[in-house]
């Protein structure tokens, strides 16, 4: 009992082949779009690679790029099958490749669904990675003379200005690290000596932030130093001052940015899944309809197309038997060995038999 049978006249078969050809070229185009989305996402992640600790999140654009390329290839093959489907001399050569094609197309659909799931699941990992990366960036801000870290200052400054954020969680992160290098500190000055002695690690800590934290929309020229001291500046209240510096933390800003990017690729990925599924189903119908038509006496007559030849359970049983047979193919069958030795003995008896009557 076939699954989801549909009757196909010759006309309908032709229409199906034409429609499927158009659909598969559209799928090729969408595959290209998915590839480009993957490339864009990867370049955006690589641009900020310096403030990320690990590359776990890169699996999302990698899968998108791979699926995009594979989708271009498989749908191009589907369009070739469509072109050959109405020619009875050329269609039979696609019999075995089509099985492989169906497997690949199913795998692609599963991968696309996995990508959507991963982009939400990896948000936590992205945040962790950014937290560690930004913490290191802020810690090494002052090390512009250390090879390998000399551009850390520029990176953090650019990041804070571009994403309008300050520090890891907020601007107070800058109060906990020494971000002014020792070579610009006058160790003979009393203020410097006091500050260095005031903490265990002998770091020069101050309640000030770099200039890249300054908010240009503030009506007042930026106040960067003595931020917690209300008396240091005229008409200034530390608790109620909101516009002076950026209030958002860079980790939050970057996470929001990347989540938005991945969410915007969501509709594209979903539409590719739908298109791929429809190409898959239509090609199956086309294959079965054309094959059924080819075995009829009148190849131009009506034929039936179906999704599965037998029901779902029976098909699974058949597949199991096929798989086991293929596995057994490698093993030596003891019954077969005995049978062959018996045959060999019978042959030997026959050979011995003729000479005896002669003698």
């Amino acid at each position, binding site marked *: 009992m076939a699954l989801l049978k549909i009757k196909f006249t010759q006309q309908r078969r032709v229409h199906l082949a034409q429609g499927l050809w158009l659909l598969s070229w559209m799928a090729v185009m969408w595959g290209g779009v998915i590839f480009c989305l993957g490339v864009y996402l990867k370049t955006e992640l690589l641009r900020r690679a310096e403030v990320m600790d690990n590359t776990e999140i890169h699996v999302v654009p990698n899968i998108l790029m791979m699926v995009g390329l594979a989708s271009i290839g498989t749908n191009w093959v589907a369009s070739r099958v469509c072109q050959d489907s109405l020619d009875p001399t050329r269609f039979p050569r696609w019999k075995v490749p089509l099985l492989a094609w169906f497997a690949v197309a199913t795998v692609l659909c599963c991968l696309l669904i996995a990508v959507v799931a991963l982009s939400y699941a990896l948000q936590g990992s992205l945040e962790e990675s950014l937290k560690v990366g930004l913490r290191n960036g802020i810690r090494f801000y002052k090390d512009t003379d250390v090879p390998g870290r000399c551009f850390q200052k520029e990176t953090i400054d650019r990041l804070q200005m571009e994403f309008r954020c300050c520090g890891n969680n907020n601007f107070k992160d800058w109060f906990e690290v020494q971000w002014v290098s020792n070579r610009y*500190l006058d160790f003979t000055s009393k203020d410097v000596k006091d500050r260095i002695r005031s903490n265990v690690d002998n770091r020069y800590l101050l309640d000030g932030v770099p200039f*890249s934290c300054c908010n*240009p929309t503030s009506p007042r*020229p930026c106040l960067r130093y003595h931020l917690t001291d209300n008396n240091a500046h*005229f*008409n200034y209240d530390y608790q109620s001052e909101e516009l002076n510096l950026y209030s958002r933390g860079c980790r939050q800003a970057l996470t929001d940015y990347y989540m938005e990017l991945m969410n915007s690729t969501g509709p594209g990925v979903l539409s590719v899944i739908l298109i791929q599924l429809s190409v898959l189903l239509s090609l199956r119908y086309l294959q079965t309809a054309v094959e059924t038509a080819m075995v009829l006496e009148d190849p131009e007559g009506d034929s039936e197309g179906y999704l599965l030849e037998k029901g779902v359970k029976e098909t699974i049983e058949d597949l199991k038997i096929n798989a086991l047979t293929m596995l057994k193919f490698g093993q030596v069958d003891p019954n077969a060995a005995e049978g062959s030795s018996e045959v060999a003995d019978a042959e030997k008896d026959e050979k011995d038999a003729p000479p005896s009557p002669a003698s």
Partner: protein
Amino acid sequence: MAVLRLKFTKNERDKLAQVLWILNWISVLTGILLFSLGLFLKVEINKRGELMAERDIQYVPNMLIAVGLIACAINFLGGKICYDCVDTNKFLRWKLIMLPYIICTFFFTFCVLVGALMCYSMRGELEESLNLGLTEAIRFYKDTDTPGRCFLKRTVDMLQMEFHCCGNNGYKDWFQIQWISNRYLDMSQKEVVDRLRSNVEGKYLMSGVPFSCCNLNSPRPCIQQHVTNNSAHFNYEHQTEALNLWMRGCREALLEYYTHIMQSIGLTVLLTWLFEVMDACLSVLTGVRYLQTSLENVLRQGDLNSESDGWLLENSFMETARTNLNIIKCLGKGNQIDTANNGDPNINVPSTSKAHYGPDNVPLKEIPEAS
């Protein structure tokens, strides 16, 4: 004796019309390109409108937009004409418009060239405008509480951060104006009062710059205050310190930016003009002229499918010029009064030429009326 006479079969006429149609549509696309370039320049100028003083620089993008639109209209009309030329019935509609269309195309091609040259001439006006505009903007930087100027601080800060520049000519422009508003100055402090008294106008001047002048590439945290005082900071010498603040002036930075845009646009428009000249003059005018004359000849001969001659001018250049001059003279005479009849044009002046009365030259007898 016609100028450059050629013979056209019906097929050749059709092909000529089709080729001209395609060329016209390519010209429509170039017209759209001109329009979008003009629009882009207009948007870019308006984006920084707050930093430019009132100067006559809008005429360049406006000219480009107008020329682009006219290009689209003329070439669309030309495409329609060529499309209709294939069918002789429809061609008759356009017969009268052909010549004005050819003249308009010449004129419009000249306009494109003027547009391209104007792109290069805009630079001087732009520099003047930027100079004045930036001086004003820096002066009103502190007025974030004055309506109409409250966003000037943000505009100037974003400009300096984006274009990597500081001040009008350099960072010292900030030393000459008060960029900290009075409402953030503690008038009870001695230092503030001293500074205010130290100059004639009572301005709070300091050797400091806003944070947006800070250079990202500096290895040292930015020094904004007491920039010229070497002893105020450890291990600091302001004459040799080149990486602390942006060294370039914003006028120079913006001018370079706009010059780059205008040069690219000017180059594109020049290339478009060259294409239009080759396309319009050689192909459209010649082709349209040939099409017109050959179709007129076909109509005169009466047979639509036959061959016909096409030419550029019916008679030679000299004769055509003479004929046109006569036409112009007659047009001129039409307004003058004929003084031979005492100014009255209704008097019937008898013909002075001899009447020709047949081969015998005998005047006709009057036939008596039948009674």
